[in-house]
Every structure is written in structure tokens, then in C-alpha cells.
């Protein structure tokens, strides 16, 4: 079900000439108006909020509209470690998720083609984590990897881990959680492109005396690029903004806080709305720049 969202199939319907009709406007209007009202204007009000100044009344949580651009300077100088950490963690988690998911997607999309039922059941297993609460899944890992857990005590007994070391609360735990939670977002788009991979190209590579590794590098990887781009974006974007895994009640500690945690704390606890808004705008802008550059880059690589 969810994987349909990532499919970019073209079918017979694509070929028909599109008509001009007033019906189109009627069909578009409700949804587009809705998105303008509840997606676009909130972004504008976020920009406005990010420039607000504390009210002269001095009441906490009350702000006046202003053009206080230094809000951005303040949040960057206060929270630059959180900003760097967010993108660093998200990047590592994305690379790990790609390494984990590619063989899995390859098996489901290519090797399991002969058995359609097995293929669709394996896909169900990939999205199965979606059916159980994201928060409970993360808490399950917290319990399974706590200091008293079987895994950690065994590692310590085998001297693979220092006796006074912890796993939960460390950057490694947060990256682990981010990787685990976003694996389905990586696997599904990889699957949709690998499922349509024409195996004759691989055979042609073999016939031309390429080693299996060369075929993989020069044929399989370039042909699955659309899936790699979609998967990495679908993993990186939510991972960079996530604040569950890094939260102290889940897998994080006090020195693993990410930009999402700071936005949440400033908005919902400290009532420092301008700081939360400025951080949100920074997060969104950096992500949009990364997405644009990345899509352009991978597009040109494909042409070469």
C-alpha cells in the first residue's frame, strides 16, 4: 500500500491529450486552496514570527511584530552545534540505511521476481514497522539496548565494550534509532526502481567480459539512481528534523540534542516562538538547498 506512493509508473493514460476544461479548476480548487491556507501561509507566518521582538509589556510568551533579523544571528550562535549535529546524524543514518536497504531491495526487486507472492509478502514485511507505533518501536530499542539488557551485558562480558560504557544516550544510539526508523523509506523507492531493472543490461555487461563488481558499479547502480535519490531524500529529510530518537526519554542524552529538540523546547516549553521559528526557517532552507543541489547533481550524473 505505502509503496504505491513512491511508484512513478507511466501507463496508457499518460498518452492521451490533456484537455482544457473549467472542470480542471473545480477539481483543483479545494485542495490547492487548502494547501495555500494550511501549508503556505503557515510558512509565511513562521517567517514573520521569526522576526518578532519581545513585547514591551515584558510578559513571557508575548511578542510584537518587528524585523529583528538578529534573531537569526542569535539562534545560529546559540545552537550551531545542534544544527551541525542534526545534519551530521542524518547524513550518517542515511548512508547506513542505504547500505542496509540496497541488498534487501535488490533481493525483493530482482531475485524474488519469479515468486510474485513472496515478493509482495516481503514488501509487507518491509512496511510492517509502520503498523506499530514509531514511539513504541523506539522505546523497545531503548529497553533492548539499555545498560541492564542482554545485548549490552553480553558485550561487556566479552570485553567488546568497556564495563562502564553506555549505549543509550550516546550519539551512536541516536544514529542507530534514526537508521532503524527510516529504513522502510529507503527500501521502498529502491525496490520500485530495482523491480523494473531490465536484467538484459546486466547480461550484456557479462557478455562484454565485465566482472560482477564492474557490472554492479557501471550498470546496476546507475540504473537504480532514481531510487537511490528518492530513498536518500525520504530518509535524510525526516531524519534531520526528527526529535524523538534524540530525546532524553528515548535514545538520546543531553549532548545528542538535535535541531528538532531545540525547536520543540523553544516553542512548546520556553514559549520563545521567534527562536523556534527562526530555527525552523534555517532547517527548511538548508534542506531545500541540499535537495535542489542533490537532484541537479544526480540528474547530470545520469546524463553522463
Amino acid at each position, binding site marked *: 500500500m505505502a509503496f504505491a506512493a513512491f511508484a512513478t509508473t507511466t501507463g496508457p493514460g499518460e498518452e492521451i491529450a490533456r484537455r482544457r476544461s473549467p472542470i480542471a479548476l473545480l*477539481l483543483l480548487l479545494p485542495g490547492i486552496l487548502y494547501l495555500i491556507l494550511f501549508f503556505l501561509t503557515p510558512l509565511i507566518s513562521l517567517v514573520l514570527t521569526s522576526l518578532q521582538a519581545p513585547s514591551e509589556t515584558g510578559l513571557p510568551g508575548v511578542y510584537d511584530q518587528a524585523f529583528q533579523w538578529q534573531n537569526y544571528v542569535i539562534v545560529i550562535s546559540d545552537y550551531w552545534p545542534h544544527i551541525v549535529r542534526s545534519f551530521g546524524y542524518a547524513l550518517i543514518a542515511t548512508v547506513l540505511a542505504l547500505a542496509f536497504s540496497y541488498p534487501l531491495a535488490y533481493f525483493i526487486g530482482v531475485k524474488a521476481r519469479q515468486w510474485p507472492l513472496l515478493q509482495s509478502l516481503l514488501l509487507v514485511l518491509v512496511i*510492517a514497522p509502520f503498523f506499530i507505533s514509531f514511539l513504541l518501536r523506539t522505546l523497545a530499542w531503548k529497553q533492548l539496548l539499555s545498560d541492564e539488557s542482554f545485548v549490552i551485558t553480553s558485550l561487556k562480558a566479552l570485553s567488546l565494550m568497556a564495563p562502564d560504557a553506555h549505549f543509550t544516550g550516546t550519539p551512536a544510539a541516536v544514529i542507530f534509532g534514526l537508521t532503524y526508523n527510516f529504513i522502510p523509506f529507503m527500501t521502498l523507492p529502491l525496490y520500485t526502481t530495482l523491480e523494473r531493472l531490465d536484467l538484459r543490461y546486466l547480461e550484456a555487461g557479462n557478455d562484454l567480459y565485465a566482472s560482477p563488481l564492474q557490472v554492479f558499479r557501471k550498470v546496476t547502480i546507475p540504473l537504480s539512481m532514481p531510487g537511490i535519490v528518492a530513498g536518500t531524500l525520504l530518509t535524510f529529510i525526516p531524519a534531520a528534523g526528527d526529535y524523538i530518537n534524540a530525546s532524553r*526519554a528515548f535514545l538520546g542524552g543531553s549532548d545528542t540534542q538535535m535541531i528538532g529538540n531545540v525547536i520543540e523546547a523553544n516553542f512548546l516549553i520556553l514559549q520563545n516562538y521567534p527562536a523556534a521559528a527562526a530555527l525552523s526557517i534555517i532547517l527548511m532552507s538548508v534542506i531545500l538547498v541540499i535537495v535542489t543541489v542533490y537532484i541537479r547533481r544526480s540528474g547530470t550524473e545520469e546524463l553522463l
Partner: protein
Amino acid sequence: MKFSLGKWLLPVYVIVAFTFLMIPIVYTFIFSFNDSLKSNITWRGFTLDKWLNVCEVQNGAVCRAFGNSIIIGTVATVAATVMGTMIAIAIVRYRFKFRSATSLLLFLPMATPEVVLGAGLAAQFLSAGVPKDMLTIILAHTMFCISFVVVTVKARVASLDPALEEAGRDLYGSPNQVFARITFPLLLPGILAAALLCFALSFDDFIITNFNSGSVTTLPKYIYISASRGIPAEANVIASAVFIIALVIVVTAQVSKAARAKRLATVG
């Protein structure tokens, strides 16, 4: 492909990978049978009590949160599916101005981190003086669902053979009849998939909900609030039950699809 190593290496890897993916699910399921007291961290023995008396803990707080999640998910799903399906049909079938602006407006919500969507809506509700309650959560969930519905239904509209509708018109079907008897039934699987996806996204959403819920508690929010002081096993019961229901629905759909494909293959 000749490397014999790959013959067994990949299947073994797949089994290990799936085992890893299932670990927290199995853990959550097992701990729904834990005879726990307030927090559900150490194993204290097997019991069916939590399954049988789900709603009794904390005066039914878990069940109230679950009920809220169901209401919010249902309303948001219906609203987003209707609006998203209409947009998907318009995009595939019609020509209109501002096509690229429309695509951008549909793509951006999917490329925006949830924390930004949540904070933006909360900032707007704050400046407009709208109190946060069930309605603001529904408005938020509908918003982030629309784009996913459009993407899902669009694929289905694009794969629809226009010859079928032409045949309907040739047989003197009125535009309404053609839509009701041909187009809509053919789009239905895509629409249902989109609705399921939207409901799943809404049901499990915490980040956007947290910014726009005020004092209303949904199931994920209940779990988040309880996380620091211990989550009752009843939350595991509800999550496990939802998991099983979702799994049964999806597996049944896949198996019947495979059976249908097989039947068509033997007939054709």
C-alpha cells in the same frame, strides 16, 4: 550472474535483515502480555489481563487517546482523500495554467520536515488566536496527507486505459455514468491505498500533533508523555492489536491480488 557466493549470501542477509527489522515489533507484542505494574520495563510474568481490560488503566486514558486517534485519522483521511483524488484527476487528465506551481505546492509539504510543518501551523494558529483542540489536529493531518494521496492516486489515474472510458461513451453512457460505472471503480484500488496510507500516517503522527494538539491526547502523544514515567502495558496491547489488524488487511489484499493474477493467467 555467476558469483556462487551471492547465491547464498544474499538470502542469508535478507533473513538476518528482516529479523532485525522485526525485533522491536516482537518485543512490543511480547510485553503486551507482561504482568507489569505501573511501568512496563522488566518482565514480571505472563498475563492476559492487559488484553482483556485494556480500557481500565488510568480511568481509560489509553482508550480515550486511541479513540481520539481514530476520529482524527478518519476525518483527516476522508477530507484529504477527496481533495487529493480530485487534484490527481485534474493533473493527469486536464491542461491548466500554473501546472508547475501546482506540482511545487504538492511536492513541498513532502520535502518539509514535520517539525517545520508543525511549528508553522502552530505559529499561524497562535497569531490568529485559534485555540488548539481536536479540530486543529485534523486540519494539520489533512494538510500533510493531501500530497501523499495525490502521488498515490495519480499513478492509478495514469495507468487507466482511456479506451475503457471511450467505450463507455461510445455506448451512449452520459459523463456521469461513465465516471460512476467505469472511471471510479477502476480508480478505487488506488483511492483505497491512498486512504490507508493517509490513515496510517495520521494514526502514527506525533511531531505535528504535538505542536497543534493543546490538551487533546492522541495515542502517540499519550505514549510520549508517559515515556519518562513508564508506559502501561495497555499501550502495547493497542499497538499490537492495530499491528495485527493492519497486517491482516494488507496480507489478505496481497494474497487475493496474487490469486486473481493467477486466475487471469490461466483463463487468458
